[in-house]
Structure formats: C-alpha cells, structure tokens
C-alpha cells in the first residue's frame, strides 16, 4: 500500500476513485468495510448475506463513482449508510415470504420467561421483534444504536430531520417494550 493513503480523508479518496485509482478504492474499503458490514448484518442477521450486501455496495461505487457527488458536501459515511441500508431493505423485501408480525406473538400471549432463559434466546427474541418493526422504525433503530453514528448523522442518512428520527425511535421502543415485556 502506498504510504500516505491513510492520511487522506474520504473525500480525497473518492476524487481519486473517480479518476480510476484502485489504491484509493482499496484504502476506502479497508477503512470502512467493518462498519458497513455491521449495519447490513443488523438488517439481514446473516453473515454471508451481510457480506454480499457490503460487497455489492462498494462494487457499485467502484463501477460508477459519479454516484458520489462530493460537490453536495455530503459526508461519505452518511451517504454510504443510506446506500447500504437501501440495499439491505431491498434484500429483505426479496426474501420476506412470511410476515414476521404473524410469527411473533405478543409478550402477553407467551408464558413468562423463567430464569433458565439464556441471554442468547433473549437476544434472538429482540432481533425478531426488531425485524417485525416497520422499515423506517427499524432503520432508525439500527442506525441510531450503531456505534460511531450520531443521531444527527442517522437522521441525515435517512433524509429526515432530527425530530422525525426521534419520533420513529420512540415508537419503535414502545413497540419493543411491549413485545419484550417478559425479558425486560
């Protein structure tokens, strides 16, 4: 790797990518793959599919780097969160054959969790409950609770203002509290 690449910011790298620099692309991918994998995983809950989504997003950027419009002064990561989120939601729409709402009973209808309930099971239920949320609430939740992303950035990634995002989060949490009553 050429020395100096890590010193360049994302926007400089993107300008070089637009001129066809593989080295700049490699640096950008190494820098951000894990964070975007993490957000894709939160949606699809599967390693292979999350990796495919991240790969797809980066390759689309490479193929057509003019998609990134630096003159609009967007932060690259905010814009790319939106790309990865949209790809994840598209993937889910293609895969969704069973309505998760039907599959997931409300906490009240379920026997109370006993103490032997493992943490893994609790998290499994949490993921199911999150998966059953409407797309926008789920996206808001996934972005806001991802480390390294502020609420303002999450709002920008969703094309919302901060208040609208907070309202989505509040509604999502209210639903989750109902559905996770036995585990909280």
């Amino acid at each position, binding site marked *: 790797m050429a020395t100096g690449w890590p010193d360049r910011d994302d926007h400089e790298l993107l300008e070089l990518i637009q001129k066809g620099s593989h080295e700049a692309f490699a640096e950008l991918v190494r820098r951000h793959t894990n964070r975007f994998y993490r957000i894709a*995983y*939160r949606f699809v809950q599967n390693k292979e599919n999350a990796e495919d989504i991240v790969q797809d997003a980066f390759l689309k950027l*490479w193929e057509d780097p003019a998609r990134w419009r630096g003159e609009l002064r967007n932060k690259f990561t905010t814009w790319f969160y939106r790309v990865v989120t949209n790809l994840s939601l598209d993937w889910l729409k293609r895969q969704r054959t069973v309505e998760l709402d039907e599959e997931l009973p409300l906490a009240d209808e379920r026997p109370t969790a006993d103490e032997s309930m493992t943490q893994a099971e609790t998290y499994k239920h949490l993921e199911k409950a999150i998966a059953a949320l409407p797309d926008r609430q789920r996206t808001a939740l996934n972005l806001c*609770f991802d480390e390294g992303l502020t609420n303002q950035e999450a709002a920008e990634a969703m094309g919302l203002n901060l208040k609208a995002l907070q309202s989505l989060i509040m509604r999502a949490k209210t639903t989750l509290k109902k559905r996770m009553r036995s585990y909280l």
Partner: protein
Amino acid sequence: MNDNRDVRLERMLRSRQEEAASPDLAERIILRARKIPQRQSISLWRFLRDLCVEFHLPKPAYVLAGALALGMVVGLSTPSEDPSAPSGNDAQGVFAADEDLL
C-alpha cells in the same frame, strides 16, 4: 418500573451481537473491483469543469478574447450611419452604379 425497562431495553439495543465479518472481506472486495471496469458517466458539471481545464489559457489571452468579443457585439449592434454605404440587401445596386461609371 417503566424507567427500568427503558434502561434495560437501551442496554440490550446497544449490546446487540453480530457475527464478525470474514477477515478477508475487504480484500475480496478489492480483488473483485480490479476485474470490473469503471463506467465513465460524466455529469454535466464535471464535463464543464474538465472542459475549462482542457482549454486553460493564460490571463492575457482571456482579456484579448474578451475585448474581441465585446468589439464584435458593439460592432454588430450599432447600425451603419453612412447613407451612401451600400446595404447588404441591394448588392445589385452597387454593381449597377459601377456599370454607370464605366
């Protein structure tokens, strides 16, 4: 009670686990990209910017070109004052005048 639940839910949301990505994921993406040609779709703004760079001229040349353009605009917009000057429309009249002299 409700506050406790809020706190617990927040804590759970912040500690969601995920399977780690393959360590070679980034390298796989980089290798795949090397086999894919870039699409050269140029936006209008980029095209204009590149065009300006392509035709980069020193400042005096811009001044000269500007003066010439201004001169042409002024020249074309000012009607001719000389009534004896032949207009472009009656070229035949000019030739006829020449014939009289001969």
